[in-house]
């Protein structure tokens, strides 16, 4: 019988190195009989060992500032438009790509615009949503009613040119749950000035510029929605247009798998080999398995065996190990 009470304070004291002998004995006794705490203890150490992914911080930060700013320049959303977009972050990034250019330096020429955009967004408002201060969650009830938006933004005085599109995403409210997004209550003196936000938006909406990230996101959506043809078309377009994009290697792995599933092992093999050549190791185990299956479907027995052996050599405890051993005619290792 495992206990349902867990000495969480003792775990914290242990982490700080503050356990005395008696407490250590208590904790060890609990761990001896509680699989959940043993598992949690191991898992916490496992998570702490996760490596830092390689993402462009400058670009993410710039996009965050600009996406938020452009979102607030849009007219107040209607109820129908409040439905959060599926990939708001990437969409917002695409919308502001004209500005972003990957770093603050790249937007240096807009230093007269960016601060004012952000200042408009972040300007203190006396009518900010009084939702719980510690929780970054928005209370949907406080945001349900369309509210006039206050934009103390003088940008209209100096029209922005050349990059013409300061258009906000079509559905600005972030799907990020938190967002203590300031909700503007009726503040008579300020409510009189919502119009400028409309003036900033060009008359003719323009689609956001397409990027490798946006095409990758669209392809993933299509794939997850079961539209494999559409997904493959987009993946192939990404590889044709942006062969050196950071998304390219994962695209090759995914496209290879889709081609294999579509009964095209030869072209699948091309993509899978290209992925392996890219040096990206995150999907290597799966790609090695898919590659062996491609050889199998092509009837290239020797290559298939070599591919399975490569998988087993690199990933002996792979989830594909049983299949590999079976194809090699070997008994599975226990």
């Amino acid at each position, binding site marked *: 019988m495992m206990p349902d009470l867990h000495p969480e304070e003792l775990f914290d004291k242990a*982490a700080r190195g503050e356990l005395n002998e008696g407490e250590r004995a208590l904790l060890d006794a609990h761990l001896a009989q509680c699989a959940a705490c043993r598992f949690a203890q191991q898992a916490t150490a496992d*998570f702490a060992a*996760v490596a830092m992914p390689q993402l462009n911080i400058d670009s*993410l*930060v710039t996009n965050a500032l600009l996406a938020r700013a452009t979102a607030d320049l849009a007219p107040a959303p209607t109820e129908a438009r409040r439905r959060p977009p599926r990939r708001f972050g990437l969409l917002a990034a695409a919308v502001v790509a004209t500005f972003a250019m990957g770093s603050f330096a790249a937007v240096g020429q807009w230093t007269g615009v960016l601060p004012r955009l952000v200042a408009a967004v972040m300007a203190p408002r006396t009518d900010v949503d009084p939702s719980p201060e510690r929780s970054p969650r928005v209370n949907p009830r406080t945001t349900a009613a369309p509210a006039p938006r206050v934009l103390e933004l003088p940008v209209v005085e100096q029209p922005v040119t050349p990059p013409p599109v300061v258009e906000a995403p079509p559905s600005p409210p972030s799907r*990020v749950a938190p967002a*203590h997004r300031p909700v503007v209550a009726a503040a008579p003196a300020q409510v009189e000035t919502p119009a400028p936000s409309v003036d900033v938006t060009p008359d003719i909406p323009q689609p956001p510029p397409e990027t490798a990230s946006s095409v990758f996101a669209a392809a993933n959506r299509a794939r997850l929605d079961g539209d494999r043809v559409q997904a493959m078309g987009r993946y192939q377009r990404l590889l044709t247009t942006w062969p050196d994009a950071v998304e390219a290697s994962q695209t090759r792995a995914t496209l290879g798998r889709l081609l294999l599933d579509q009964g095209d092992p030869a072209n699948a093999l091309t993509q899978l080999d290209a992925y392996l050549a890219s040096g990206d190791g*995150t999907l290597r185990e799966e790609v090695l398995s898919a590659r062996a299956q491609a050889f199998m479907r092509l009837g290239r027995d020797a290559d298939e065996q070599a591919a399975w052996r490569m998988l087993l050599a690199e990933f002996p405890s792979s989830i594909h190990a049983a299949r590999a051993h079976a194809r090699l005619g070997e008994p599975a290792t226990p």
Partner: protein
Amino acid sequence: MTTPLRLVTDASARKNSGLDELARRGAAGETDAIGALLKAVAPAMIRSAQQLLGSTHLDLDDVVQQSLIGLVQALPAFRGECTVHHFALRIVARTAVAARRRGHLRMDRRDDEVDVDSLERPAGPTVDGVDAERRRELVRSLLSTLPEEQAETLALRIVLGFSLEEVAEATGVPMNTVRSRVRLAKTALKKRIEADPQLLEALEVES
């Protein structure tokens, strides 16, 4: 029996008065402060997103981007009752848990014929042995199925290594509520482990 190892979050998190000042100035609309703040906390937010989602999750970059946007939006609500670091990581946790839930729902209505799951979802703990990634993936899978508050608490406590006190400060709930949520999450974890004899056996061996 080994000494329990709960890895304390960044020690500097407790004395980040510099970040507090940036947050205050950022809330007042100072662009430079917002940018500096985001740059300071972005590495931890990125790493936390990867811990919560896994390195191959398709929404990883999107979750990071949304979390940064969420932090900018939430700055006016920050009162310094927890560290900026924990405030930011809580936003990551909420965003990542929501992303996992959406992914979980998508998986439920997917065509089983398409065997591409394995490209983005590491195997569950039902195969030979137990390794670190399988333990991580089991915890992540729990985040998709637990009630929201429990999932968030589990994410902060086990995945991001918050202490009970830090969870309470970041979520703004009493300590007893945090204890209750951790207990319920561990009960769910226990059920998941007990449902898998191989996992349970391996855990016994490792402990």
